[in-house]
């Protein structure tokens, strides 16, 4: 089983990197970009029998810092 975890800064948490990317896009002439949020994608290659609930626990314990980040799990 493969799982893909998306980790994003929570809404309301300032994302200075996303803001810098937005500025850079503006400088390149892409004027229609109103906001950029930057996150990360973590791909997990999992042994059979690993459940989505296991992946959720991995997110809670390590992959995301839930003080500042939200996450979503996609199982393939």
């Amino acid at each position: 089983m493969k799982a893909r975890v998306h980790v994003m800064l929570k809404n309301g948490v300032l994302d200075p990197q996303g803001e810098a990317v937005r500025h850079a896009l503006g400088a390149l002439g892409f004027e229609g970009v109103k906001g950029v949020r930057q996150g990360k994608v973590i791909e997990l290659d999992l042994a059979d029998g690993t459940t989505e609930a296991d992946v959720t626990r991995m997110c809670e314990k390590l992959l995301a810092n839930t003080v500042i980040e939200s996450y979503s799990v996609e199982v393939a």
Partner: protein
Amino acid sequence: MRAAVVVFPGSNCDRDLAVAFRQAGADVTMVWHKDDALPEGIDIVGIPGGFSYGDYLRCGAIAAQSPICKSVSAHAERGGYVLGICNGFQVLTETGLLPGALLRNAGLKYICKTVGLKVETSQSDFTAGYNAGDVINIPIAHHDGNYFADAETIAQLQGEDRIAFTYTDNPNGALADVAGILSPNRRVLGMMPHPERAADVGHGGTDGTALFRALAGALTTA
């Protein structure tokens, strides 16, 4: 005072911290991240600055899961003292011993300079050597020192007098100008600035010395 300084792969302020503890009279033992127990009779654990595990995933996230950190958490839960500086503060928030998190600096740049810190409380064994309201000069050197916590947590820290230091001129976007905070029992301090880099005349300043002396005073008579 018996101090242990934790060494992670990527720590780079461990020896400076050990020197500052020793100058205050401490007996210092270095402990490796793979050790699963602290030496007997340790009063205070120092978690140094640096880039533990290359800052992979998030600053301090991997270190917080290391074998030694479980012992550090147990030490803190028993009422032991912990001082986390810079990356050490990030590790303490990742372990949950201190609330909040350290985000990328608002200006996106790594900042290395001496800054003014206001001592917000002298009511702790870390800050008893200062007077509340004192302004001291201590170096910072970080890329992720922008303190964040939800409004409720910030209000709680303020209400319980647990903000130890604030920046006089906020360099990184930290909420409420927070530079360092205390645990509820006031025995765990996390701070982004480096008092161990202002603890010898050769450093260009000695405003950090009072922190180590106050600790030595409190933990020697205890």
